């Protein structure tokens, strides 16, 4: 998997949460570790849609493993390839 997805997500999460980018881990739960809250996650989704020209649906949120940066990055990669 290309680093560009992980790097993009870490950068956006760092911007919104104030956590230093070096301290953001790719494989821990982004919700329980306060990387994002219930509003910030949707801002992140909109930024993902705009940056990678993909659409995120409610079904995606329910079916995909997006609880970690790694999971979310894989989901973006798959969606971009399917486009």
């Amino acid at each position, binding site marked *: 998997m290309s680093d560009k997805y992980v790097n993009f997500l870490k950068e956006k999460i760092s911007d919104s949460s104030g956590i230093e980018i070096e301290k953001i881990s790719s494989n821990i739960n982004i919700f329980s570790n306060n990387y994002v809250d219930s509003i910030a996650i949707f801002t992140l989704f*909109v930024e993902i849609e705009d940056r990678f020209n993909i659409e995120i649906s409610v079904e995606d*949120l329910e079916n995909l493993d997006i609880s970690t940066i790694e999971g979310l990055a894989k989901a973006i990669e798959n969606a971009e390839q399917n486009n």
Partner: protein
Amino acid sequence: MQNKTISISVAKLCDTQNIMQFIHNVWRKEHILSRDKNLFLYEFQNGDYLNIIIAKDTQNNILGIFGFMKYNSHKNPDIAGSLWKVNPDVKEPFLGLKLREYFKENIKHNFFAAPGANLQTKPIYKILKMQWRQMKHYYLANKKLNQFKIAKNPILKDIKIHKPITEIAKITTIDEIKEFDFSSNTKVVPRKDLNYIKKKFYNHPRYTYDIYFLKEEGIIKNLFICRVAKVSTSTVYRIVDFYGELDYIDDIVQFLYQLIIKYNHEYLDFITYGLNNTLLLEAGFNALDFEDENTVIPNLFEPFVQKNSPIYCVSDKTDLEFRQFKADGDQDRPNL
């Protein structure tokens, strides 16, 4: 808070106290819907149930709510969203979305709109593929007044006085408007009916609404509903709902302008989305420029906030004519 098994369902009447407590604890302390049970039930009671979707844990704690109101008594009514809140301590991702999805799957409806959406929530609605809009705030200031205490520097405009071609009157009984054809324009959503007006305005437990009809050759062409808002000894008159087209808007504006002069209201205002901007301006309204800090036409009165307040509304995507007004959803609710 640890994650516990969560169940989502339509709230029952017996959940009332719990939900009111949730509103107090999570939404805002002393929120009117957390302390005024009559108002709470007026807004949400639906027989033995409440028009609220709730998420609970195994210990019966309420974790989130999704409230709604019906616009009409159809089998698949048009619906307005109201309170939508999840306890932020619950680390259940997308619980708010799950509440909404439960609503979509279990509450039959034709069309959904949510007036008064918080700007912070815009990304959520974008992901939900709903339409996001900003309402316009029209106003007509009373030129006879020497000073304004509610408005700041309103633009003053002359109203062309003309001989009205219609009859306008305030109703005293609800029967006076039962002949209005609510389905005359099938392209307009949300669709409202007489029961909606009766419950929301005629029988409101706290506010006094003035319900007017406009007749042309004996046929009711428009209904409009107004309410006085007060700050100390100063008042304004607000059009909070509107039915029909704008063919006779000149007569309506002239009628209401004469009323605001008679009762020394500072201005008449009309918050709306979906009506023809040109016709409203030509009839005499100004459209508030939210960027202009010099002119202030407040929207919030309980408590009073002397600021311009942009108002947003969302809805299902539609090719139909979407219209919203100040009183849609729970936007014109008492707050003190």
